[in-house]
């Protein structure tokens, strides 16, 4: 085998993309999604603070437009994921998103149960946050998760 004889397809290669630095994600360009069957004022607080954030009650599948454009996704523990996993609910949604998108999206389990039911399954999420957290805690979590996106 000749190691110096390899094929390289230059079609569609954009030289600018090779040298372009990874865009820093922050308030101006990140999209934050909450998957929760109940409303929490933190979403409107984030919007007022200048973030692009939205809550949806549930998702049909992980290719949903809202999911694919999101950078950080907060998933409730119960009452969501009907179309993904009847058994696992929120954990099912987290597993499916992580399996499909890996570290290109960060998933945070946010729940009222977060402090006392830390089963192995719950650790499938990248991080966890209790539902009764301050908006400040949410912003801190979002900022630190955005830095971990690969």
């Amino acid at each position, binding site marked *: 085998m000749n190691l110096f004889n390899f094929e390289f397809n230059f079609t569609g290669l954009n030289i600018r993309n090779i040298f372009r630095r990874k865009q820093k994600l922050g308030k101006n360009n990140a999209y934050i999604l909450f998957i929760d069957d109940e409303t929490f004022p933190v979403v409107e607080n984030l919007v007022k603070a200048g973030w692009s954030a939205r809550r949806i009650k549930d998702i049909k599948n992980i290719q949903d437009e809202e999911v694919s454009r999101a950078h950080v996704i907060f998933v409730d523990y119960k009452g969501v994921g009907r179309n993904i996993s009847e058994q696992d609910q929120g954990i099912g949604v987290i597993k499916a998103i992580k399996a499909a998108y890996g570290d290109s999206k960060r998933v945070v389990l946010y729940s009222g149960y977060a402090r006392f039911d830390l089963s192995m399954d719950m650790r499938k999420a990248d991080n966890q946050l209790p539902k009764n957290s301050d*908006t400040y805690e949410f912003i801190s979590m979002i900022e630190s998760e955005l830095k971990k996106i690969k």
Partner: protein
Amino acid sequence: MIYLQKKNNRGEIIFSSLPRDFSSSNYQPREFKLGNGTLVLFTDDLLLLKRAKILRKVEEICSPALEFIQEYFIQQIKAHSHTLKKLQGQLKQKSEALVENPMLAAQVDYSHQRNIVADKIKKNPEAAADVFIYLQKRIFEVEAHISSFEILHMGEELQLDVRPHNIRRLILNILHAFQDRFDEYHVRRTFKFEDDMAESKKIRLDYKIINTAFYNFFDNAVKYVKPYSEMVFCFDVDEGNYFKLRVKMKSLRIEKDEIQRLWELGYRGKNAKQIDGSGVGMYVIKKALRMNSFDMQIQPDYSVMEIYEDSQNISNEFVISGCL
């Protein structure tokens, strides 16, 4: 005499039935393994201590019973803590719309902070009004939840304060807490009886306890009602002063064989597994109604069936009955 003490795996006492003036001189402790810790039995009955077989029997009976009780209370604490945390989180996050950044606020004096909030209200009175209405609704929910906790765990020990009340006004007062959620699902609420009728046929009841029953009822209804539908309230009183309050709605299918089981503590409807809940609400409703000598029956009508987002919805009628 027998006293009990429960210790965790670090040897710390979790609970103890020992009296304050307990003197251990006549008592001999005996330890049993219980869950992650130990149960210590103190007795001055020498005959009992000498009979190893009886003591083993006591251990056999006590250990599973106490473990069960411990697990039951842990589950109860989790359920209540979850609901309170949810409400507290909503209250805190909503109030942050007016009083944001507590860390910054701590660096200025109170009057300065008050002026900042007053300025915000002046600049956007509608947004401020939205915050206050939201807080009022959630505070009402906190009160109802605390009352549910008392009914659940103290029940008949609670003293009743029975007075005649207008049932229409009572329902409207509770409905206001759910207004935003019913509106979100586009569920219309229609009363088929006038205030005059409810005023002339007042029902003698404990206001706070019935409030709690209706709070739990609407808390369930808002989760299971079919969006874009109507909830209808009817009220009839017969000549014997026996009333029937009917609440009719299109909601998640209830199977015939589970109607009775819905009143059991911890039972969740076969078709409701995907919806957040702990199976406490219906039990509290039944208990609160029973404390007022009222009853509730569920009458499903399977001839009306509508699918919404893969869920089967039927026409369910909830009938509350009793004497005025």
